[in-house]
């Protein structure tokens, strides 16, 4: 019962927060609602026994990515921005197309078939701690994707500097 109450709270709060994010006129308010949303997502991860990912969610998304958003918003001029039109002219079309996709996706979710169950039960993860279990897998089986991810980050660093630098 208790997990269901938690899930219900998180689910309702997350949907409301997502709607707030896409409808706020002022992008700063959107970012701040998103901060709250990320805390709820971290809470949901805790409910799913993914404590390491919950911490990473807050550190990376709330602590790094959203701060980046705030920085950029502050560098741009917001005054005229807030007074202008919020939505695209053709927004009813966008909403209806999304609604159709949504219905299609909901129809397919019922066909989900449970695959074979792996060896990482809650007890195994708990005895090994979540961070250690993830780390072992990441640095053995997924070493190559891990290296590629580091390369992507390097490219992002270089690319962001090249793009945002003032050309003299």
């Amino acid at each position: 019962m208790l997990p269901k109450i938690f899930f219900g709270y998180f689910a309702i709060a997350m949907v409301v927060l997502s709607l707030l994010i896409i409808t706020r006129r002022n992008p700063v308010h959107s970012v701040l609602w998103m901060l709250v949303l990320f805390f709820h997502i971290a809470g949901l991860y805790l409910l799913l026994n993914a404590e390491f990912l919950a911490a990473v969610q807050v550190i990376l998304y709330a602590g790094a990515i959203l701060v980046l958003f705030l920085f950029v918003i502050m560098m741009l001029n917001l005054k005229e921005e807030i007074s202008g039109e919020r939505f695209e002219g053709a927004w009813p079309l966008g909403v209806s197309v999304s609604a159709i996709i949504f219905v299609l996706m909901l129809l397919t979710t019922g066909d989900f078939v449970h695959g074979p169950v792996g060896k990482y039960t809650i007890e195994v993860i708990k005895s090994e701690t979540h961070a250690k279990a993830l780390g072992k897998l990441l640095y053995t089986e997924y070493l190559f994707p891990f290296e590629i991810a580091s390369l992507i980050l390097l490219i992002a660093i270089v690319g962001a500097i090249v793009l945002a630098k003032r050309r003299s």
Partner: protein
Amino acid sequence: MVPLSWYIGLSTVIFMIGVVGFLIRRNIIVMLMSIELMLNSVNISLVAFSHYLQDLRGQILVFFIITVAASETAIGLAILVALYKNKEAVHTNEITEMKG
């Protein structure tokens, strides 16, 4: 125990809210945030799958998604800053260079 389908439903709803946000907003910053919403909804479903199938591969994938999301945001916002410097525009309908 919460059924797995609830998590998938939640993930779908948030994904679609992200899609709607991306389609209807004019502001590029909010559009980028909608992309983050979509990525996060996928993360939720991956963690849920990983928990219910007792397999950590879903969470490894979440790891990589977070990495790519961070890079994508950095590059996207850098493009936005460059755009603002050149054209003073952060709205999609102000960027009409390619229109004939």
